């Protein structure tokens, strides 16, 4: 029997009234890849942040190699051989790779000899693992995949024996995921222990030998990966059986109602982010935009929804030109013409987090009847409407007076969706509809989008989740560096093919 390298006993942690971890027990064996799966908000990241010393547990004990240790700060964890690659990289963007890696472990007051030594050591490490990283490159010039390698290199340089990765694949192309998995397997072969936190079932099945499942702050099961299946894990995660596939009727394509001609858009820093994009969407169709984050999808959606100025080119709705570089309709005018928008960043653009749910539910329509009359809000009407719509969209808890930020991500998204879909838009622009949303809500949101399509709406769906694009879209375009680099009918197209396009290779 192997002794566990890491053993957690009865870990409890709460933030205010929310108990993020309840009596967690976990054993991780040396030299394995151990998966921890659970929905957003299940407490996985919190648990691992405790192991990394970033948060302190309210109670419970942590043993490394059978010895109980007290982790007061990440420094203690690092000294004990624990490294963590966070979901949001912990890198200083305008520092070089080298500066980021030595930060906190400089070993000398004034830079000199030790810096040289660190550089030599790192170059050796890079060679050993075939990392191919330029130590003098600035982080902001590196792709996301490379930044992640820097994070891994950082942990290895600091002597990590246990490497924790928090949702490492969220921002990678399928090819980059392959590369990452290759690195992780080779680390395992060298005797390192890997802990993989994810909500993606397929990664668990691909990579891990053991898996622990978390739900609502509790550990609900441990199993060997070979003894379980995706369906079984999903059921453990959600607490009920879930449909992993979306049921979709055959497309009934109507006429083209939304058209974009040679569109170019600049961002706030005056960099052209959308370059000469052409696209058309028919009624009854979902057009998916695949691409790695930051390849112009955000700016494209903003331009189409009237939030961002068009640099050149034009946008047509029902054959009528609605925007070009000289004039454009604002979101409100677009709304009146039947265009709705579910923005990518729901916290920043979709909702006012400090408002009550019922206020967000009618926001944008608040000055129209029946919600208001002669500039005075009709609270009775609003409450009635809110109750009805929250039931219909299964928003939990069903309390219109609750502050919006107290709802989970999935329920917040349902609030936005209900508001935007309520007017039966002809064109729907949707960005990252299920980012940070739990599986149960994903199922619901996907079904709503399909319903809209079947009712004849033209839907533009931008998502970095390839699975989502593949399961919902009728047609898929891929954006890379602001350009459309590929268009495919969604028949027999594989994620590998799209991945190559997303990486700008094919």
């Amino acid at each position, binding site marked *: 029997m192997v002794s566990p390298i890491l053993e957690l006993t009865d870990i409890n942690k709460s933030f205010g009234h929310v108990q993020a971890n309840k009596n967690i027990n976990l054993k991780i064996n040396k030299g394995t890849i151990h998966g921890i799966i659970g929905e957003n908000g299940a407490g996985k990241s919190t648990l691992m942040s405790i192991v990394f010393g970033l948060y302190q547990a309210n109670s419970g004990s942590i043993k490394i190699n059978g010895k109980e240790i007290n982790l007061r700060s*990440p420094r203690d964890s690092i000294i004990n051989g624990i490294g963590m690659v966070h979901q949001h990289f912990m890198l*200083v963007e305008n520092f070089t790779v080298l500066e980021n890696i030595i930060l906190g472990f400089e070993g000398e007051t004034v830079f000199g000899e030790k810096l040289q030594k660190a550089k030599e050591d790192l170059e050796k490490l890079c060679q050993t693992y075939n990392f191919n990283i330029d130590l003098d490159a600035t982080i902001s010039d590196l792709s996301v995949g490379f930044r992640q390698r820097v994070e891994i290199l950082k942990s290895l340089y600091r002597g990590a024996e246990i490497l924790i990765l928090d949702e490492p694949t969220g921002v990678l192309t399928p090819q980059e995921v392959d590369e990452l998995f290759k690195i992780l397997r080779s680390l395992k072969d060298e005797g390192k222990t890997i802990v993989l936190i994810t909500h993606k079932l397929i990664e668990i099945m691909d990579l891990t030998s053991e898996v622990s499942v978390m739900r609502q702050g509790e550990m609900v099961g441990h199993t060997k990966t070979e003894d379980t299946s995706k369906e079984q894990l999903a059921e453990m995660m959600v607490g009920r059986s879930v449909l992993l596939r979306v049921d979709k009727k055959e497309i009934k394509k109507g006429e083209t109602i939304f058209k974009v001609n040679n569109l170019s858009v600049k961002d706030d820093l005056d960099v052209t982010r959308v370059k000469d994009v052409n696209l058309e969407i028919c009624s009854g169709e979902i057009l998916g935009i695949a691409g790695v984050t930051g390849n112009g999808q955000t700016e494209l959606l903003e331009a189409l929804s009237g939030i961002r100025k068009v640099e050149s080119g034009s946008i047509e709705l029902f054959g009528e030109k609605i925007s070009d570089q000289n004039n454009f309709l604002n979101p409100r005018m677009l709304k009146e013409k039947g265009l709705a928008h579910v923005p990518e960043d729901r916290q920043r653009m979709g909702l006012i987090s400090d408002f009550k749910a019922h206020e967000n539910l009618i926001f944008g329509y608040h000055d129209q009847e029946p919600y208001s009359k002669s500039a005075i809000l009709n609270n009775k009407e609003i409450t009635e409407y809110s109750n009805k719509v929250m039931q219909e969209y299964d928003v939990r808890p069903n309390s219109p007076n609750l502050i919006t930020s107290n709802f989970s991500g999935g329920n917040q998204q349902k609030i936005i969706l209900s508001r935007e879909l309520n007017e039966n838009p002809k064109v729907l622009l949707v960005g990252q509809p299920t980012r940070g949303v739990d599986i149960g809500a994903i199922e619901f949101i996907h079904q709503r989008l399909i319903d809209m399509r079947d009712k004849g709406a033209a839907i533009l769906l931008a998502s970095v989740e390839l699975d989502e694009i593949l399961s919902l879209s009728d047609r898929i375009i891929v954006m890379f560096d602001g350009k459309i680099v590929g268009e495919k009918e969604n028949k027999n197209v594989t994620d590998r093919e799209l991945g190559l396009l997303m990486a700008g290779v094919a």
Partner: protein
Amino acid sequence: MEFLSDIASLINSTLRISTPLVFAAMAGIFAERSGVIDFSLEGKMLMAAFVAAVGSYYLGNPWLGLLLAIIVCVCLSMLHGFASVTHKGDQVVSCVAINILIIGLTTALAAAWFGQAGLTPTLNEDQRFLEIHLPFSDALRDIPVIGTLYSDILSGHYIFVYLAYLSVPLVFWIVFKTSFGLRLRAVGENPSAVDTAGINVFTMRYKALAINGVLIAFAGAHLSTAVNANFFREMSAGRGYLALAAMIFGKWHPKTALIACLLFGFTDALQIRLQGVELPAIGEIPVQLIQAIPYVLTVVLLAGFVGKAIAPNAIGQPYIKER
């Protein structure tokens, strides 16, 4: 020849006028590079001027006055830290509170101790810093060019003037060549990265603020115990804000901030010089117009010519680790 000496005296006053700006800008660099906005440079400079003058008056030694000013300014920086780092308060509000507090406090204390609102007794020669005449400056005065450069421009300043310009390479060295500097810059850019590297974010910010307090004390002492021989009401006269503008204009970098300080100092020296001077074709320019030059220049430079100043990424944001 008269023209040359005019230029020399213009440069000489530029160096002197820029001195408090340089100290304040360097102080600002430490605070803001660590991610803490420091609007309170103005208030701290005023407080330092007051404490230095009072301390020197009672203790009879300007160095002891300076020491007291340093202690008080570090305390004020810690107060700012306590409100905005430990308790995650709004950094601008904390600074404004400090500034307002000090305007009132200096006036009231002066009234209570010396019977005159906002005025401290005149310091005698032993109680203040005097101009330093570099060796051989009299002997070399008559040599062309070198004499002017050495005797008229470099020599004859208060100690603070020399210290201010020496502090710039020192600050550069600390910020860019030491591990402390690396951590300092990191904590202002991405405090989470610093935290996960096992360094305490709060301690780093307090350290930065402590250095900030030391440096700003020099600026205040320069005003009340060197160029002037007493403290008077609101004697910092916006120099703290001007230094902040210079620091932003210099993109949080010691070298460029120095250039900005010198530019502001130069326009100020120029406006003093131009007052009452008849210019050919134009005639005498109204004083008010000339006095406005440094401020107009600030606005114009900040608004248009320097491009977008990119602040440390995490500036103004309290570090919140847990949700």
